[in-house]
């Protein structure tokens, strides 16, 4: 594991040996090049999304390929090419999946009526509490059975049960995990989330799930917020709206888990004499983009409801809630591919991967059951 090369939120975590072996680019140009790469690839995705269906008018299935598919595939290919030339780390300044996805989610808020968020909040909170508790405890228990280190158990359990990389960072800080453990979990989270982006929308179709249930299922069990958004976008706008609300609710629980983990490790595992646990982490770990998401929804709802011409006002809001949002999501999905590193999989070892696999299956099953019950009959209108 010590040789793993990966990143956390775009910040490369590399070994000293790897650093020495690789030439680095210096100066402002790498940042400019990085921005050009991400924006250029997003523009390519937009071009393909618009034009590919017209190139193959006979193949109707081509028209059903959504932009996240193009974005992730193109990002993966571009990341592999940059990696092959040894310049990916040096050009990674603008590969900011988390930033782009959070801006996109705030913009998405503008397209969702505040009343829908208010109605979805109740079932979302119930689902989040039951799902996080179940998946966290099962993962913690199973990782213990396999003899994993307590800190690695905590980081994996938080990542799988709450919201992927962000939760892994919060948990790693709470239990003072090693940076190699955090880097490793961050990579494996993406490794498991990537196939689910495509598998879950397909399963939604196979199972014939209504949009709110599909959204709640996707939002509940896919780990990373970016992957939830990609899968939700593939299913459709209604599923995406519920998936975003459900995932945001899970994100909001992150502070509670961080405080709980800190207390558990301080008082039960490490038994530090005289140590205390502050509640400041509740606010520090609260995802601020959720505030932006709700404010954007409230502002857009008020704007439309008080407009002289609500139809024209709705068209204006669509520029933020749909047009701009799709651009930021495209930048995020391209970045997912650019940030993905195959090397981390080789470094992983079998036992943690087995924990991830079991946790993912449990997460899929419990989330489907909860979504089917809590969001049955939910209306988005």
């Amino acid at each position, binding site marked *: 594991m010590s040789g793993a090369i990966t990143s*956390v*939120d775009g*910040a*490369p*975590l*590399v*070994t*000293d040996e790897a*650093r*020495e072996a690789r*030439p*680095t*680019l*210096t*100066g402002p*140009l*790498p940042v400019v090049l990085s921005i050009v790469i991400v924006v250029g690839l997003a*523009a390519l995705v*937009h071009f393909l999304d618009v034009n590919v269906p017209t190139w193959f008018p006979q193949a109707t299935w081509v028209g059903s390929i959504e932009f996240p598919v193009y974005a992730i595939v193109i990002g993966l290919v571009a990341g592999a090419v940059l990696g092959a030339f040894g310049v990916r780390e040096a050009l990674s300044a603008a590969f*900011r999946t*988390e*930033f*782009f996805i*959070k*801006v*996109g*989610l*705030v*913009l998405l*808020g*503008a397209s969702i009526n505040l009343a829908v968020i208010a109605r979805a909040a109740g079932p979302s909170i119930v689902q989040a509490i039951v799902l996080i508790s179940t998946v966290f405890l099962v993962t913690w228990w199973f990782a213990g059975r396999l003899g994993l280190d307590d800190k690695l158990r905590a980081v994996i359990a938080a990542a799988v049960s709450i919201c992927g990389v*962000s939760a892994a*960072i919060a948990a*790693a*800080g709470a239990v*003072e*995990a*090693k*940076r190699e453990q*955090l880097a490793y979990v961050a990579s494996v989270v993406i490794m498991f989330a990537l196939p689910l982006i495509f598998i879950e929308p397909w399963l939604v179709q196979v199972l014939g799930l209504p949009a709110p249930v599909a959204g709640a299922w996707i939002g509940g069990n896919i780990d990373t917020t970016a992957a939830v958004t990609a899968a939700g976008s593939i299913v459709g706008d209604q599923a995406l709206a519920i998936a975003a609300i459900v995932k945001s609710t899970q994100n909001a629980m992150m502070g509670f888990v961080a405080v709980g983990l800190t207390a558990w490790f301080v008082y039960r595992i490490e038994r530090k004499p005289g140590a205390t646990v502050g509640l400041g982490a509740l606010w*520090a770990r609260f*995802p*601020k*983009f959720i*505030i*932006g998401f709700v*404010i*954007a929804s409230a*502002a*857009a709802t008020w*704007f439309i409801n008080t407009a002289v011409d609500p139809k024209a006002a709705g*068209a*204006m*809001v*669509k*520029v*933020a809630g749909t*047009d*701009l949002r799709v*651009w930021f999501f495209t930048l995020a999905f391209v970045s997912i591919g650019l940030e993905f590193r195959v090397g981390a999989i080789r470094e992983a070892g079998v036992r943690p991967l087995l924990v991830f696999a079991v946790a993912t299956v449990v997460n899929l099953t419990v989330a489907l059951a909860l979504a089917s019950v809590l969001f049955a009959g939910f209306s988005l209108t």
Partner: protein
Amino acid sequence: MSLTQPPSGARAQPPTVATAGRRAINEDWLATIVGLILVLLVLAGVITDALVP
């Protein structure tokens, strides 16, 4: 731009867990502010559909 080998003995350390946590929190606020500014500009009519490809 220059293509250089980093000097040995002056190795930059990879970000610690604490650094990654601070970065995530700062990025969270930045994304929120950028998103809300864009929404405000759209509602104010500054950014119109003609400006978004």
